[in-house]
C-alpha cells in the first residue's frame, strides 16, 4: 500500500461521511444567495421569479448545449420556430405540473438524462441515427420528449427549496415566463453566431467535429451527474 492509496481511501471515507451533503451545492441549480431569497418569499413576486427563470436559462450550459444541437442544421426560421416551440411546450408542461403537483425525482438522475439529450442530439447531427438505426425516430417528437425532462429537472430543483404555497402558481408561471425570455435571448445570440458561421466555408467542414465536441460535453455532463448520484445521494 502506497501513501497515495491510503490518502485516497481517507478521501473516499470523507466523501462517504458527508453523504448527506446538500444536493443544491453540486447540481447545477439556483445559486446560494438566490436560494436564500426564494425561501424567504411569502406571496407573489413576479419580477424576481421571472428574473431567476431567465438567469437559469441563460447560465444553464446543459439547456444551451441542447439548444445548439437542436438548431444546428435548422436553416429555416420556420423550422427553428417549430422545434423551439416543441421544446418550450415540453419543459413548460413538466415545470408547471412538477412543482404544482409536488412531483420530483433525483436531481442527479434527471440531469444525467439532460446530458444524454445533448449526446443524442449531437449523434443525430453526426448522422449517427441514419447510419446505425433501422428506422428514424421523428426528431420533433424527440425534442418534445427531451423538453419534458428539461422541465422536470427544473421542477425538481425548484422543489428543493421550501417555497411558500402563497402565490405559488403566480410565482411558477412567472419563473416559466422568465425561462422563455431567457431562452429567447440565448437563442437569439446562438442564431446570430450560427447564421454568420453558416456563411463561412468552414461550417460544413467543422460541423462534424463541432458535434463531436458537443457530444463529449454531453458525456461529461452524464459522468458528472452520475458521479454525484453515486457519491452524494
Amino acid at each position: 500500500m502506497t501513501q497515495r492509496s491510503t490518502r485516497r481511501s481517507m478521501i473516499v471515507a470523507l466523501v462517504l461521511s458527508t453523504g448527506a451533503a446538500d444536493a443544491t451545492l453540486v447540481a447545477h441549480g439556483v445559486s446560494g444567495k438566490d436560494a436564500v431569497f426564494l425561501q424567504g418569499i411569502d406571496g407573489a413576486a413576479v419580477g424576481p421569479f421571472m428574473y431567476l427563470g431567465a438567469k437559469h436559462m441563460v447560465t444553464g450550459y446543459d439547456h444551451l448545449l441542447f439548444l445548439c444541437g437542436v438548431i444546428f442544421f435548422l436553416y429555416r426560421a420556420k423550422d427553428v420556430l417549430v422545434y423551439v416551440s416543441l421544446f418550450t411546450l415540453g419543459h413548460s408542461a413538466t415545470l408547471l405540473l412538477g412543482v404544482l403537483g409536488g412531483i420530483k425525482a433525483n436531481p442527479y438522475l434527471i440531469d444525467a438524462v439532460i446530458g444524454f439529450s445533448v449526446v443524442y442530439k449531437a449523434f443525430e447531427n453526426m448522422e449517427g441515427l441514419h447510419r446505425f438505426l433501422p428506422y428514424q425516430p421523428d426528431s420533433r417528437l424527440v425534442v418534445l420528449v427531451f423538453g419534458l425532462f428539461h422541465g422536470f429537472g427544473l421542477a425538481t430543483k425548484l422543489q428543493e427549496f421550501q417555497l411558500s404555497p402563497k402565490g405559488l402558481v403566480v410565482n411558477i408561471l412567472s419563473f416559466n415566463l422568465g425561462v422563455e425570455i431567457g431562452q429567447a435571448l440565448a437563442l437569439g445570440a446562438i442564431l446570430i453566431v450560427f447564421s454568420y458561421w453558416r456563411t463561412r466555408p468552414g461550417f460544413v467542414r467543422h460541423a462534424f467535429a463541432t458535434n463531436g465536441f458537443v457530444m463529449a460535453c454531453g458525456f461529461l455532463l452524464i459522468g458528472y451527474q452520475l458521479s454525484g448520484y453515486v457519491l452524494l445521494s
Partner: protein
Amino acid sequence: MLSNPRVYTLPDTLTNARHRIALASGIALLVAGLVLVFFVLPAEFAVDPFGVGARTGLLDLGVTGQHVAALDAAASQGGAAGETPIIAPDEKTVRHESVTFSLRPREGMEYKYRLAKGQVLLFTWTASVPVNYEAHAEPDGAPRGYAQTYEKGTARQSASGTLTAPFSGIHGWFWENTTDQPATVTLEASGFYTLSHEFRAEEAVKTKTFR
C-alpha cells in the same frame, strides 16, 4: 441562409461513414471520461483515482467543497428538536454581560461569542435606529471566509431569543447602521462563553476574555 437545407429525413444527403461516426463518438466518450476522472471528480467530489487532482491542486478544491457541504448539512440538522439534552451540565459558571456599541453613519460591525457545540446563548439586543442584521457563525476549522448564516433581517430595532450552537466556533451578529446618523446597539447575553470578538472594518479585532 443557405439555399440547400439538410433535411433529417432524406438519407441520400448523408456524407459521414459509419466508422467515422463510431470513431468520433468513441473519442468523445474517451475525452469526456478522461476530463471526468482527471479534473471533475477531484475538484467536485474530492475523488482522485489517478492522483492528478493532488498534483494540480484541484483536490484541495474538492476537499474544501465537501467540507463546506458537510458543515451546511450539520447546521441544517443542528436545530432539530430532541438532540439537545434537557439539562446540559457545564463546568464553568454562567456569564452575563450588557455591552453597548456605537455605530457611525453607514457603519457595520460584528460581535461574536466563542461557543462549544450544543451550548446555548440567551440574548436580547436593541438598537437606537432600525438596523440591518444577520446572525451567523464561523465553525472551528472551517475554510477561510466560510460563515453559516442563521437569520437575517432588515430595519429591525430589537431581537431576543436563544441560540444553540450547531458546532463549535464563534457565533454572533453583524449589525449595519443604514442611516446617516450615529446609532448604538446594546446587547445583553448570557451563556457559558469564554471569549468574544468585535470586528470592524479596518480595525484590529478586539477580543474579550470572560473568567
